């Protein structure tokens, strides 16, 4: 496989994982809870593209709207779904001062719930859906043919990350999210409303999941009620390895995981390839032991943490 093709593949996967890790990291930063349901939010967005039905073939619903409307609708839909999970599952727990272990289990329960509901409505048979068909074409970069959808994934992710940076630095709500991630109680003492800032984090994470679902479905064309799991696993591993308390760490962790996974797949000899995932997952335990703040988290400076 050619070097440019390899890079595009690796960066495309890395982009997907970076987006998931960002969504997980946003919520983790404030609530100190890893939201296992995040991958399933992406799955919800994908299924919103088709008509809910137990039939083998699901006719497109939002999937046949014009591109602009579809993007807005799915992004908004998943953002709302995220807000609803916060409102009805996580907020009641927070108000009852649930401990970290309970929050963790509950996010697992929400994940299971979302999967079960979709399983109930759509059955377990994978369904196909086609959106943005133009993206399945190939394009040429430096004389090499690469999939357009991969290039678009990389580009969209880069834009989203840039938008996030601007939001987190220049918009007051974004600054509040960063403050809440660093010292939630102190932010509240200064008047930052806990419910509002958490709902906002979930909304943004949901929006990111919505956009990711479009990119993912554009590339694979398949719906499956379990489709969110590999992404959630990747996002989870990326966040922990990259740095749980830091958004930059999470994003870089996701990127690193996707790139490493792709490169290992292409470059490892046949016999070692199955060990690739096992090796990458075991990095979590290694990082937790050796450098728990993550590989890419910025060093803490200043007088007191």
């Amino acid at each position, binding site marked *: 496989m050619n070097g440019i093709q390899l890079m595009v593949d690796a960066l495309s996967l890395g982009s997907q994982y970076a987006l998931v890790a960002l969504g997980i990291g946003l919520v983790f930063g404030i609530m100190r809870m890893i939201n296992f349901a995040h991958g399933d939010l992406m799955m919800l967005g994908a299924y919103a593209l088709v008509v809910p039905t137990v039939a083998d073939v699901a006719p497109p619903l939002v999937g046949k709207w014009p591109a602009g409307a579809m993007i807005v609708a799915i992004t908004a839909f998943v953002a709302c779904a995220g807000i609803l999970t916060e409102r009805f599952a996580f907020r009641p727990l927070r108000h009852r001062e*649930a401990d970290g272990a309970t929050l963790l289990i509950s996010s697992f329960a929400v994940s299971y719930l979302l999967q079960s509901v979709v399983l109930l409505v759509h059955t377990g048979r994978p369904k196909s859906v086609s959106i943005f068909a133009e993206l399945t074409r190939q394009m040429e970069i430096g004389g090499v043919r690469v999939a357009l959808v991969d290039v678009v994934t990389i580009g969209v992710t880069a834009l989203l990350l840039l938008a996030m940076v601007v939001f987190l630095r220049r918009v007051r709500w974004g600054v509040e999210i960063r403050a809440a991630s660093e010292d939630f109680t102190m932010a509240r003492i200064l008047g930052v409303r806990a419910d509002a800032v958490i709902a906002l984090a979930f909304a943004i994470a949901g929006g990111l999941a919505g956009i990711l679902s479009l990119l993912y479905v554009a590339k694979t064309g398949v719906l499956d009620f379990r489709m969110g799991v590999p992404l959630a696993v990747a996002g989870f591993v990326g966040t922990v390895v990259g740095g749980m308390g830091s958004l930059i760490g999470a994003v870089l962790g996701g990127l690193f995981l996707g790139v490493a996974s792709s490169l290992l797949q292409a470059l490892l000899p046949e016999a070692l390839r199955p060990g690739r995932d096992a090796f990458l997952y075991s990095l*979590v335990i290694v990082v937790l032991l050796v450098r728990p703040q993550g590989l890419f988290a910025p060093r803490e400076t200043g007088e007191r943490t």
Partner: protein
Amino acid sequence: MKVGSSLPTLPAAGLIPLLALLCVIVHLIGNLLVEGALTEALVYMVMVVGLSVFVGNSGIISFGHVSFALIGAYASAWQTCCPGLRGVFMPGLPEIILDTNVPVIPAALIAALLAAVVAAVSGVAIARLDAVAASIALLSLLFVVKTIYENWTSITAGQGSLAGLPLYVSLWTALAWAAVAIVVAQFYMISAHGLRLRATREDYAAARAVGISPWRERLIALVISAFLFAIGGILFGHYLGTLAVSIYWLDMTFLTLAMLVVGGKRSLTGAVVGTLAISAVRELLRALERGFDFGGASVQIPQGTQEVVLALALLLVLIFRPQGIVGDYELGVSLPR
């Protein structure tokens, strides 16, 4: 330093006779479906009781125990499954394993021992981490083990199913193993190790101050817990007769965790009660999904309702009764002080 309101009692003395009674009643009723349901419930009970040895005493949630069930189930299959055809399904196994048929009980013990060894090795690292990190690490262990087993097709039949395991799990076998698990869990709980681990759960700093080593106590609990959970996984495999890596993954993780949490994650009685309660609800929903006639009208709920109800049940318990059905309570005979 308060250790908990649940001591000192011997819950096994109360739980085992009650379970035995339940089995006798169900057997006498003679309905095969109900008997099968209770058998399956008892198999899960072995897992959940095993889970509670670690989670209940340490306060650390484990999402990774199913990896021990997976290891145990396949290790038992390597010793007992499909004699003659074993080499066809799993050509990568060493000659000696392909040729030897071990009787089922020693096979189970050896297989669970393998899982316990894996727990010990990974536990050396994991027991050092703080509670949240440990939970995350245990989940990662599940990912690692699942991926290895999925991809090492020469010894596990990969993503396919492995059929032909000896079906030796009857109602009474399951009851016997459940009783063994409960007794082991109880003796750990009232032992000095159990006491010390619970001390770290109640007040970590104080426990360390009096010289308790959280790392050692967690490691011991994890190994015992992994052994029992593996037995449960082995029984599950021999109850179904087939194995597939996908069985030992997120569904089983969710189910066993739900059973523990709904019953009461801090007590052994909770593990037993939770398993029975969730199993009963599942059976009821399964029956409704199959559909039946009620006074002339046909009643049936859609396939898949079962999982939705379970997920909602767990969420509601977490929000409104996080201590579970029994809380800290332990059934049984009080020990003299």
